């Protein structure tokens, strides 16, 4: 049964980066409506992701949440010197999540979460100017997190959930800025890895300091996805190189960085809640994306050298009446990329997110959730200065501009 759920999940979950790096912040429709705040919110079982400790504060014995976000993203590239431009043709991203929380007694709650906090789908035109860096990439990391939470006192709750992480990646790029086979086709390699498994955890603390003020802290651990003996498919290799560049296996490590969130909620009235979160993502753990091939291609060194980055989120929720709740939010997302390390596979500059959301009770127990997000990116001139071709560093630079629009739908069942 569990296996089947996994298969279904991996089929329908595809994601598109909408935060710095390959973090995809759409882990709850209610949260997304208010700028993806939530470390101190106690609205629904979305808390399994945002702060496991908050499960103890859910109002119902059973709370089930399911949601999907449709993400339409585009990145444009241009280079003035070369008088060239390109644009991604990304498929619609559909990161999804599922949470179930059950109250055991006054003190103890437990639950299960399934969510995809990391992912990336970028598809440039094949053989475009930056094809030696990436033609297309699809990355997914699916987290399955059984969770328990315990109320230490009326003020303090703690929660913890170990997470099993499944990684899938497909990545294609050309072997150099020029290599072609006898028919003029660019030589390229496709890396495919699936079912890469790793373990992480999510831990949280909730402090209800008064009826109106709650403070939350959560920490999601770093996860190292280690792809071993996965498939590397070399295409369009010139005849005399086929003795070196044949289809083979590869090893590579990809880090899913740790994230610390600190936040609070404040009830400014009986119907209105303000939420403020700060995320710190420890991107500095992402040093490189080196790929070791088991053929003459050897090891491909790809320095990334990310830096830790903060996101500031401010959201508001207002209950219009018993049935309708409205939400809005704004957040500032700082890109974790150092100068000279801007690659078109995660071409994300600093951005501002504007969000809106609504929940509507269709029955006593069932609520429909909607969210909307517009990410506004600065136009950015970036370059990647660490691509080594035959001992020569070849820079790839240009102007980038991105836009992301996301619409999310969810169901929340409370019993």
């Amino acid at each position: 049964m569990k296996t089947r759920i996994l298969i279904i999940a991996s089929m329908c979950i595809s994601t598109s980066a909408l935060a710095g790096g390959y973090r995809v912040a759409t882990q709850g429709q209610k949260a997304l409506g208010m700028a993806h705040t939530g470390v101190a919110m106690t609205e629904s079982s979305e808390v399994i992701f945002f702060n496991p400790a908050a499960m103890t504060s859910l109002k119902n014995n059973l709370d089930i949440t399911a949601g999907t976000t449709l993400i339409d993203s585009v990145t444009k590239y241009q280079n003035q010197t070369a008088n060239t431009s390109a644009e991604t043709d990304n498929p619609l991203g559909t990161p999804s999540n599922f949470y179930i929380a059950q109250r055991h007694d006054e003190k103890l709650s437990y639950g299960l979460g399934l969510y995809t906090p990391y992912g990336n789908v970028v598809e440039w035109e094949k053989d475009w100017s930056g094809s030696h860096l990436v033609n297309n990439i699809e990355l997914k990391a699916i987290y399955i997190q059984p969770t328990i939470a315990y109320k230490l006192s009326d003020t303090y709750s703690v929660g913890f959930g170990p997470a099993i992480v499944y990684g899938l990646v497909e990545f294609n790029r050309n072997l150099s800025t020029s290599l072609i086979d006898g028919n003029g086709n660019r030589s390229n390699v496709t890396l495919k890895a699936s079912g890469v498994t790793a373990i992480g955890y999510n831990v949280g603390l909730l402090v209800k300091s008064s009826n109106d003020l709650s403070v939350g802290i959560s920490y999601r651990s770093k996860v190292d996805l280690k792809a071993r003996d996965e498939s590397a498919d070399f295409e369009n290799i010139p005849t005399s190189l086929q003795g070196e560049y044949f289809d083979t296996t590869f090893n590579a490590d990809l880090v899913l960085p740790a994230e610390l969130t600190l936040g609070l909620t404040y009830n400014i009235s009986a119907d209105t809640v303000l939420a403020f979160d700060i995320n710190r993502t420890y991107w500095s753990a992402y040093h490189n994306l080196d790929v070791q091939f088991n053929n003459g291609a050897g090891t491909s060194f790809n320095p990334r050298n990310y830096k830790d980055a903060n996101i500031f989120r401010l959201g508001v929720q207002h209950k219009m009446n018993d049935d309708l709740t409205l939400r809005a939010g704004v957040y500032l997302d700082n890109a974790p990329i150092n100068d000279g390390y801007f690659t078109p596979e995660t071409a994300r500059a600093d951005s501002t997110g504007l969000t809106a959301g609504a929940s509507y009770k269709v029955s006593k127990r069932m609520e429909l959730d909607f969210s909307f997000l517009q990410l506004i990116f600065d136009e950015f001139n970036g370059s990647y200065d660490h691509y080594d071709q035959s001992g020569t560093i070849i820079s790839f630079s240009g102007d980038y501009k991105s836009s992301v629009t996301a619409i999310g739908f969810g169901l929340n069942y409370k019993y």
Partner: protein
Amino acid sequence: MMLMKNQIIKLACITFACAVVSACDTDFDNPVSGSSGHSGDADLSKFVTIGDSLTAGYADGALYKSGQENSYPAILAQQFAKVGGDSNFTQPLVSDNLGGLLINNVQYFDNRLVLNLTDPTSPSPEPIAGTPTTEAIGSGLNGSVFSNMGVPGAKSFHLGAPGYGNPLGLPAAANPYFTRFASDPATAAMITDAAAQQPSFFVMWIGNNDVLSYATTGGVGVDQSGNPNPATYGSNDITDPTAFAGVYAQLVGAFKVANPAVQGVLVNIPDVKTIPYFTTVPYNPVPLDQATADYLNGQYAAYNGGVAAILAANPAEVAKRTINFTAGQNAVVIMDEYLTDLTGFNPALINMRQATADDLLVLTSSSKIGTLANPADPSTVWGVGVPLQDGDVLIPEEIALIDAARTAFNNTIKAAADADTNLVLVDSAAVLEEISNTGIDYGTGAINANYATGGAFSLDGVHPTARGYAVMANAIIDEINTGFSASIPRVDPGTYTTIFVK
């Protein structure tokens, strides 16, 4: 109270919608021109180019179809057409992508080179397999004229020579590439076929072979400075700068006679020292252990002793000629005709010395060094036991002759451009120098002059790749834009090919 709250929400929604609408706009503040632009003061309605292999689109030691299609004239014509220029630019395309040339069905020029990487430690260029189909005589192209009048091998004075493509003169006294497409092979001169088209705009890049053929053959030819009669020159000689100046004036004049308002670009001559044909093979490619070095020094002891005895009054030359091998990398032994001839005293004291960093070994010497001059005698290793020949290396005296002639040619070209406001100069020497010194970053990537890996030069080590030609086309476009207040769009060199791997 409720009303007011609704109004606030309404206002918030409107603000939000406005922000979202502006955010969906992903247009750049300053978008690239793409294929738009204008020709400014340039009249590009009839575009003609004239020159040698570089203008023909020659690469990888051959003239082949895709090379021609990516020649700098073809790239320019394509960009000119985007701003309303000549859309009927024609080239005498060869028949295939193999590149070899037939004369009366017999292969006269080799196929293009591809790089064999079967042994990754020893990449070797070799002609691509196949039987070429391009015939010099009876190609079917004669009788009309072509916009691209680039003929591989042409020197300055060939352009004005009637019957330069005369089939009766083949192969030695005529150029089979011009035989292919001359309007009348027996009588036509390249310049008359070019000027007959009455171009409104031309590019002329000529004079490379006036020094290059001397250089690539290692200086076996003669410096003809002071001899203004090209009819007396050998094929690998350096052209007399005075003869060059006279010819150059006539060529520019021919365009002006055909169209007094003609505009154009004059391209100067690059330094041979910037091309990988002369910079790839090191002067000291011979690895030796101590025992072998000792053995060789023993073999050269008699030579060293003989030279020292006879040239005792000239210690500088003695030092230059003393051959000494050591453990490690060693300089090759080369012939140097500028040394004092001692063979009258002793026939064994030939004009040889070890190379220095100032000597430029030609690319083709790499396949010779280390092999046996006499396969039956293991002591006759080229460059070690037997000196490399004059044709394998450019020595400083020869380089000085090339530099002197090239400097004179470029002064002539610059003066011609300066003298006429309708003409602009493109400093190709500066472009190639930049490629050689630092490489050129063309925005989406970069090229340099490293052989096979640098991306700028094709496998013959002399001619650019398509990507290199694209960089050159951009340099020409830049000068036209400046000189004629135009904004012709540049191309992205990254979309052009480099070398071909087997």
